[in-house]
């Protein structure tokens, strides 16, 4: 099954996620124990130098997935291979090396920066811990600040002296300080205004080109994800239901959930926005504790078939590296 799913790729695979699961236990009453299946049996690959967008609604497991991939939390089952090696088997020096190569930028810059540290301390902390020789530390930090559009005068200021956009720039500079290969960007512009968002997104794109970075870009905003990514994966209650090239996904969405998601985005153009047909889907995502059997989307799906209630559809390549997990697109013998 695994072989069939993925065609031959030109570029090298940097991160390979294999049947990853992360369940969080919840105790209800005294005896019974349930699980929130935040990430359930997810497999995909991220190629070197690409930006993979990950979209989904709140509670779909995007952030949990991003954290497991960086081993910020341990998975329940499954594996993540980084450069062909399982990150969950890394120990000591090897793990430290991985921590250096893979960085994260969090959603809320107000809480991801220590209010009692200056910008200089925040950015130099990583290289110090990893014992990297940076030459003159002050010059090193100034250079990074300039890379993210800040100035020398900001060096000894504290986070509260900056605006939200500037704080996010500091968080990005901190991630870059270790010269990473792979950066997980978890809703990096959700807390920012549109005009500030535009400058941060542009900067992230420039940095990616300049340093050859690989991104996993997590967001609930499809317009932003499309602007940033070459490929997009859609998540629904802990599963990836569709992956395709960005243009392909927008022009030819296959999974009913993706179709519904796309038709829900308000388009900033009144001529289109007022006439656009909307695919109405009733209801809300199911509780992650009591998930339906079979396909998790079938209770809301306008095209549900008998098989959808019984069996969960596998994520299959339907041609042109467009993968979808839906019984409408075959895979009957599986």
């Amino acid at each position, binding site marked *: 099954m695994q072989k069939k799913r993925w065609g031959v790729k030109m570029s090298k695979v940097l991160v390979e996620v294999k049947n990853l699961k992360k369940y969080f236990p919840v105790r209800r009453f005294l005896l019974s124990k349930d699980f929130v299946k935040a990430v359930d049996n997810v497999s995909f690959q991220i190629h070197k130098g690409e930006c993979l967008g990950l979209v989904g609604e709140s509670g779909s497991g995007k952030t949990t997935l991003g954290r497991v991939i960086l081993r910020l939390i341990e998975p329940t089952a499954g594996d993540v291979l980084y450069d062909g090696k399982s990150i969950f088997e890394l120990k000591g020096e090897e793990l430290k090396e991985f921590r250096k190569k893979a960085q994260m930028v969090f959603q809320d810059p107000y809480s991801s920066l220590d209010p009692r540290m200056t910008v200089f301390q925040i950015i130099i902390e990583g290289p110090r811990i990893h014992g990297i020789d940076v030459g003159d530390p002050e010059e090193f930090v100034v250079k990074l600040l300039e890379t993210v559009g800040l100035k020398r005068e900001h060096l000894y200021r504290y986070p509260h002296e900056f605006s939200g956009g500037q704080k996010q720039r500091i968080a990005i500079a901190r991630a870059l300080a270790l010269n990473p290969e792979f950066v997980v960007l978890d809703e990096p512009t959700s807390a920012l205004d549109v005009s500030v968002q535009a400058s941060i997104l542009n900067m992230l794109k420039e940095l990616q080109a300049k340093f050859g970075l690989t991104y996993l870009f997590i967001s609930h905003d499809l*317009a932003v994800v499309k602007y940033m990514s070459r490929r997009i994966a859609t998540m629904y209650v802990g599963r990836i239901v569709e992956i395709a090239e960005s243009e392909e996904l927008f022009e030819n969405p296959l999974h009913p959930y993706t179709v519904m998601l796309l038709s829900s985005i*308000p388009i900033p153009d009144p001529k289109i926005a007022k006439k656009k047909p909307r695919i109405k889907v009733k209801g809300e995502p199911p509780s992650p504790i009591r998930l339906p059997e079979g396909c998790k989307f079938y209770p809301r799906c306008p095209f549900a078939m008998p098989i959808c209630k019984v069996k969960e559809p596998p994520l299959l390549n339907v041609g042109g590296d467009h993968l979808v997990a839906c019984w409408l697109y075959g895979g009957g013998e599986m």
Partner: protein
Amino acid sequence: MSGKDVILSIRNLYVNFYTYAGVVKAINGVDLDIYRGEVFGLVGETGCGKSVTSRAITRLIPSPGRIEKGEVFYKRDSEFVDLLKLPEDEIRKIRGNEISYIFQDPTSSLDPLYTNGYQIAETMVVHDKADWNDAWKRAVELLRETLIPDPESRVKNYPHELSGGMRQRVVISIALSNDPKILIADEPTTNVDVTVQAELMDLLKELQKKKGTTILLITHHMGLIAEMADRVGVMYAGNLVEIAPIEELFENPLHPYTKGLLRAVPNPLQKIEKLIPIRGMVPNLIYPPPGCRFHPRCDFAKPICKEKRPPRVEVSPGHFVECWLYAEEEVGGKNE
């Protein structure tokens, strides 16, 4: 489209906040007419004063804020009354009754200690629209109208038992309970997912069509404005810099700030190579820049922009802009 029957008219509104750091000049002479039955969208970024403007309409400005001067005329029956001069007990009859609000965060709009049904019914009982018995029955109907599944049992639930989208529906039910003339929706969907947002917007549109309610929609989301509004006002740093019919604003934006805002928004249907951000930062409104408040970030700033505030000019029918690029220099605008 609606006729030109003005239902709400804001004139020369000034609101200041007296903070320890200094006086924040949050609203700086806003003029605005809203027509009966239309959806008027107010857009702008954080801190531009869109929420403050909407709250000033029924004097909901919390301390240390103060409405300095101005008038808010509301057409009650067929006479205009100045809401800012009404006695407190009169304005309370209008608030939540003729003019009602939907705020951004449903969790803090609802009281966790009362059931959903109680909170909806209370609004009607307080305004003498019904007794508790009828109000309770009407609450069930309202929940049904706002498409809450199983409304009979939902009225007995407490807010924490519902999801965010469902809670916002309860808030909408409260706002609609007295059949308001004007509904002020302040970022009603910022805290919910896109699919829920789409449903709530459909709901508001339908109710508006059915009942002819006038809606003032406040949001920072250009896409929502494009989808919902008939006319739009763009706010920047306490000023209403441009007002236009929706299609006109997107096709032919005039103010450099509006142009910048539209360029900074990614349109998912287009292939965009590069977004163009607006340079600089929003000014501190304790010390706002003199003249036009946008001039430090404007690529077209002229000497006069630093000195005098631009007057409002009607460039084409219904399209107003406050910018020196479109005004005669002799005319001059309001004083700071």
